[in-house]
């Protein structure tokens, strides 16, 4: 596949000669590549691993996650992610999928959330959360994104997420908005979604979590946000912290009405 890109770029270089034409052809080749990788998405392996984890007795309580309530009732997985984040009465918090899975793992299986919060991406129990995420999200494929912004707690998180989105800080003065508040921009060759508009938010929220071909890794939304902040040069967001959930509510809320197509494959 990589060879395909190189060939396409080379062909374009020979045929084009003009800078603009070359840039356009490179972009077209990249878009073709993105389409190709959707067809054989390795995230399916994570989905399968997650499905097995869901029904496997684990943790100090040797229990499965089959009674986990993702908002549609205990054990209902289908369509649940398309309505997350949401407010949960039992925790008194607005939760995204990953923080909710931590709650279920702690209450049902006895796996301490601290272990996951202080862990590392793609390792140990946090790695298992990622597989579970792949499974749960896959069960919302094709569903309409429907986050309940009428709920006052969710609405409050939406507003805080919006403020966080515009919050500039750190040695480079960056905010999420620096890269994600204008149409049609890119970093290097990477297209940037405008998350302040429905169209961009729906495309982004609807395709994450995702398998990233560039580093052969499945990334959850918590992982994606962590790396956004790393590149913003801020301090590190804590796994499952309120700011990450608020930003997810903002993105999901802006994406409302769009279609959930995740886990997707990305360059």
């Amino acid at each position, binding site marked *: 596949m990589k060879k395909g890109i190189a060939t396409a*770029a080379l062909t374009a270089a020979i045929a084009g000669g003009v*800078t603009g034409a*070359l*840039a356009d052809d*490179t972009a077209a080749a990249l878009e073709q590549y993105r389409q190709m990788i959707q067809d054989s998405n390795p995230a399916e392996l994570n989905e399968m691993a997650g499905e097995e984890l869901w029904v496997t007795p684990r943790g100090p309580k040797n229990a499965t996650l089959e009674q986990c309530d993702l908002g549609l009732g205990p054990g209902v997985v289908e369509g649940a992610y398309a309505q997350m984040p949401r407010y949960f009465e039992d925790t008194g918090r607005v939760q995204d999928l990953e923080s909710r899975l931590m709650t279920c793992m702690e209450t049902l299986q006895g796996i301490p959330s601290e272990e996951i919060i202080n862990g590392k991406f793609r390792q140990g129990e946090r790695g298992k959360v990622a597989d579970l995420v792949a499974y749960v999200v896959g069960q919302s494929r094709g569903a309409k994104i429907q986050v309940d912004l009428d709920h006052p707690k969710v609405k409050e998180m939406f*507003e*805080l997420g919006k*403020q*966080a989105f*515009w*919050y*500039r*800080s*750190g*040695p*480079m*003065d*960056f*905010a999420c908005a*620096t*890269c994600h508040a*204008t149409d*049609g*921009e*890119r*970093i*290097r*060759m*990477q297209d*940037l979604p405008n998350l302040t508009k429905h169209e961009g938010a729906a495309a982004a929220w609807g395709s994450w979590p995702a398998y990233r071909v560039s580093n052969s890794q499945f990334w959850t939304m918590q992982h994606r946000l962590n790396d956004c902040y*790393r*590149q913003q*040069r*801020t*301090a*590190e*967001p*804590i796994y499952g*912290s*309120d*700011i*990450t959930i*608020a930003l997810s509510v903002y993105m999901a809320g802006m994406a409302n009405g769009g279609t959930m197509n995740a886990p997707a494959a990305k360059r």
Partner: protein
Amino acid sequence: MKKMLMIAPLALCAGVAFADADGDKLQKMIQSSFKANGQATMDRMVQDEVQKACSNPDTLTEARARELEAAEMKTIKWPSDGNYWEGGDWKEGYKIAFSGRGLTWTDKPGSANGGGCYNCHGLDPAEMSYGTIGPNLQGYAKIRGRSEEIVKYTWGKIYNAKAYNACSDMPRNGYGGILTEEQIRHVMAYLFDPESPVNK
């Protein structure tokens, strides 16, 4: 315009009161949601005046923007010997423009930072992988020339972009301690040297 000015004080008061209550919640959330990791310490979450004003650009008045720009202008350190780019090496400048490394919690503290110029700007017309958040700078000096005015402006813009546009997306490379004076001179050479591929 006059009508807007008359209404403004009232709207401003209401806006500030509202923003403060909201801002407190956001600050609380930030304090509980982030942790220091290596050189990426918690003090990075505290905003200076520019960052604060530009986190809510809709409420920033023209007058306040000019005031901020004037203050930022005073932070610019001009080269003491007048050596803006002649002493720089465009090849070093290219490396700095190409590298987006530095200052993250995964970067080694103390190692040289990149300028990350290509993340947002086109520079060498032969380099296809460039971002579009900033203006395209291909053929920089070939198009703009090398007058004292443009050379000085470019140094200042790289050193502290907020001196010219309070809410610019561009980092304050010199003032923010991202690039050293020597590194800025190399980047300047990359933009101005007739031998630099930027001007070919």
